């Protein structure tokens, strides 16, 4: 048996150049409907009120659904897919950190904002850029109170963690 864990490495997208042709092809697939939706956005900001993150983050405009769409998918269309990895990383924060994709954002003129965010995410995923949950890297994202759980600091808590892990396996 090949010792699998020692014989492979994870794909390292960071070192790969952005495949702008692939992005362009993906953008082209839904060009008509997406550009129509982008053009239809009147910037009325009414969608903002329906976003729980916008409301809970002190009404920070970066959490407005329209802002997230215009600065990710809109940007990709404006630049015809010619974006750098750094730009994709900027969009990643907008599309994953600033959006839960709960699909509850509401547009009074019927622009399907969640669908546009999902499409933008799909394009970023094709380049290996996607939301990595902060806890998976062991790095608190700073939004939550990471030290508030008393069990995490107690011996009793650690004991139960081991029990539960064994139980789940």
């Amino acid at each position, binding site marked *: 048996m090949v010792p699998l864990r020692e014989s492979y490495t994870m794909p390292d997208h960071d070192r790969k150049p952005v495949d702008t042709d692939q992005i362009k092809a993906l953008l082209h697939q839904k060009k008509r409907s997406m550009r129509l939706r982008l053009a239809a956005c009147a910037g009325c900001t009414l969608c903002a009120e329906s976003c729980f993150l916008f409301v809970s983050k002190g009404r920070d405009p970066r959490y407005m659904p329209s802002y997230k769409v215009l600065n990710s998918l809109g940007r990709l269309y404006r630049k015809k897919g010619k974006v750098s990895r750094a730009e994709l990383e900027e969009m990643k924060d907008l599309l994953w950190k600033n959006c839960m994709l709960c699909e509850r954002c509401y547009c009074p003129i019927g622009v399907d904002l969640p669908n546009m965010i999902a499409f933008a995410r799909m394009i970023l*995923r094709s380049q290996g850029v996607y939301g990595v949950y902060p806890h998976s890297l062991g790095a608190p994202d700073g939004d939550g109170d990471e030290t508030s759980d008393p069990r995490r600091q107690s011996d009793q808590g650690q004991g139960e963690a081991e029990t539960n892990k064994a139980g789940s396996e």
Partner: protein
Amino acid sequence: MIIATKKQLEELKEMLRGYSKVLNVGCGGCTAVCLAGGQREVEDLNTQLAISFKADHVTFEIDSFTVERQCEMHFLSALDEIVKPYDALLSMACGAGVQFLAERYPDKPTFPALNTVFVGVNRDIGWYEERCKSCGECVLAMTGGICPIAMCAKGLLNGPCGGPQDGHCEVNSEVSCAWIKIHERLKAQGRLENILKICPVREWQDQVQGTLVLEPYRERYSRK
């Protein structure tokens, strides 16, 4: 959220044996958060499968595509064109997502890459604890926010049983007795009367397939 764990590689190989072109479909929802079925885990698993089949001298090709959530049909629609050339699908979603994927593409054999374990909470990195059995008849209001169905080994509604020793369960001495914890919490809150009366027999609604249609939407779906 829903917690899942990865299946053993040998089990997956056994499922996929005989299929030479497979699409591994990741899920960006719960299973990505519990580090079991997101895009990164999809790529990891594909690499392992490809190497392992190659070592066995078996022709095998596997590709990946991650959708935002496999439990929503409109996210799955992104796969409509993509799945066509594949012999089989491997899903890294929970059991619900696997079934929805199989329902959308009924002509494609669909296999689960994960074991769906429970509905739980995320205590810390890679540390998840079961908290809910989705029983459909929540009693948390009466039990001080501690679920006896999920936390008591016997699922007792009128506890504790005669088994606990030093506050621990007789089934597993390393686990605290749920009913003693319930008693302590209610006592601290001055609500012990909550559990003094006998809790009636339940309907155990989770024994049948659950479907929830919210009240304002009932008319809309009854027309179909």
